[in-house]
């Protein structure tokens, strides 16, 4: 296997004094499809925004993000914006707010090509049309002239994906790309995304709270809770033999679709996800965990090689 596509070391995201992402390490292998699972407040979106250099004003990223021998956090603003939209791209949850409402769809898809590839207006338009065909937007020629509000949610997400793959990126980050869509449309968009990254060998980081989607699309998975990665490994392995009590609890809390539960009750996780800065010291899950002991007030390190876990009392 070649060098990893991205290596993140000790990444922190600070919101004022509070650490929202609390020292995260992970590696995206070349061409791998990695799922980043977490609930709201786990820090998964901030991690992605830090990689993209799109953190909102006032939020600071610390640590190291290695891409092709360079630490992204040490690059100049100019160098980073050259990579963004070209080598590293992102698809957001809500395409209506991510697209420019006053710009025709064709011009938006052409923009990264004009900016990063210096294509002429005509060349970029022709390429935009091909891209809209590739993402299977119906009537691509007509749609080039349309504005985002004239498209359905699923169509807008296709446009976002066309923009994201326009320059054949090395890494594509998709943040809850189908959460706002209907189930039937969701399936089409996921299939499209998977096909495109497979064809191009793009490295995919898929952020979602939906474990079923991760199990369908991703070969690797990272589980985040309270600003930390608490478990990582091959999806099949992590889902069939979870080692962190949180991962197990999440999997058991999902109602199975193909069978009825014998007593009709789901295994529930006590308590709620704490707010920012309200997580306990040490292991962030310990106050909701059935295996908590006194040593859990010290944060366990991620331990293990192929399927590491950050827990003092991992499941066997």
């Amino acid at each position, binding site marked *: 296997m070649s060098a990893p596509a991205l290596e993140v070391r000790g990444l922190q995201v600070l919101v004022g004094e509070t650490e929202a992402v609390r020292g995260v390490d992970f590696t995206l292998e070349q061409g791998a499809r990695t799922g980043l699972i977490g*609930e*709201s407040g786990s820090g998964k979106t901030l991690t992605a925004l830090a990689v993209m250099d799109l953190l909102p004003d006032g939020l600071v990223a610390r640590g190291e993000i290695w891409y092709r021998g360079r630490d992204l956090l040490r690059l100049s603003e100019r160098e980073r914006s050259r990579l963004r939209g070209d080598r590293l791209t992102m698809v957001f949850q809500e395409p209506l707010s991510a697209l420019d409402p006053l710009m025709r769809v064709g011009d938006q898809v052409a923009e990264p090509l004009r900016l990063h590839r210096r294509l002429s207006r005509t060349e970029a338009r022709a390429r935009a049309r091909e891209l809209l065909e590739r993402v299977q937007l119906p009537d691509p020629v007509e749609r080039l002239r349309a504005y985002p509000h004239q498209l359905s949610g699923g169509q807008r997400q296709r446009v976002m994906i066309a923009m994201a793959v326009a320059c054949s990126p090395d890494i594509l980050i998709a943040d809850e790309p189908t959460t706002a869509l*209907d*189930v*039937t*449309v*969701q*399936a089409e968009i*996921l299939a499209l995304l998977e096909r495109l990254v497979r064809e191009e060998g793009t490295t995919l980081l898929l952020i979602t*709270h*939906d*474990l*079923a*989607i991760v*199990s*369908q699309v991703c070969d690797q998975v990272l589980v985040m809770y309270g600003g930390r990665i608490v478990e990582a490994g091959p*999806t*099949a392995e992590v*889902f*069939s*033999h*979870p080692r962190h009590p*949180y991962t*197990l*609890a*999440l*999997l*058991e*809390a*999902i*109602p*199975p*679709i*193909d069978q*009825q*539960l014998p007593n*009709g*009750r*789901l*295994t*529930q*996780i006590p308590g*709620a*996800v704490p707010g920012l800065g309200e997580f306990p010291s040490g292991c962030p899950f310990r106050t*909701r965990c*059935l295996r908590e002991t006194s040593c859990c007030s010290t944060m366990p390190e991620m331990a293990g090689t192929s399927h590491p876990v950050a827990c003092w009392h991992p*499941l066997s």
Partner: protein
Amino acid sequence: MSSSPLFEVRGVTKRYRLPRTSVFARRREIVAVSRVDLDLNDSDSLGLVGDSGAGKSTLLRLLLGLEPPDEGSIRYQGEWRRREVQIVFQDPTRALDPRMTVAEIVLEPLRVLRLREPMSTRLSELLDAVGLPRAAADRYPHEFSGGQRQRIAIARALAPRPRVLLADEPVSALDVSVRAQILNLLHDLRDLYGLALVLVSHDLSVVRHLCDRIAVMHRGEVVEQQQTQSLFTAPTHPYTVRLLEAIPRLRWRPSPRPSE
């Protein structure tokens, strides 16, 4: 089982007029619910599924009596629909008045409907039933997490002792780790009070978990209605088939372990 159902919905259609797009254009209409027939008996649990815009929430509004249908009829065979049919919404934050205490929120239906109940006893009963501490009574909604706010909303819905509970995407706005708590609560309350439940959700696993019968809606129409089990094993309408195929399934699950 009584001979006639609690709710009898026959040929119900509801249209909405869209806002004018130009001063010269005629206002267009959309048909939100079209020729729907449904029956609901005491202790029934019915799931409504379908894409957004399929008419699920409009149908709930009609059942609740917030609006009359344009065509067809909705007959409620209970005694007092306004008391006996209650609803829980998707987003508990927006459904609760931030300036009212939990006690005021939960007891409001009793006051509005002028029901004579010993208020403090009833309040304690309701807080117990939804698993909130009694000390919650004097606090305000913003002091609670999303899951607890949904418990407050459920307590309010239960206050007038309903026979039918309508729930519109009750867990969609909640964290995954909290959803199971609310689903278990709805499950227990349904059994405890013998409530009839009408549950709207885009998540078929949620509907499957809580409902005995499922109605599939598509473009305002109920295209298929079946017992839950047979809907999953033998769907008949092409849209249902498409919907079932589109659900992302968890490919691996941990095998059940002996409890520790």
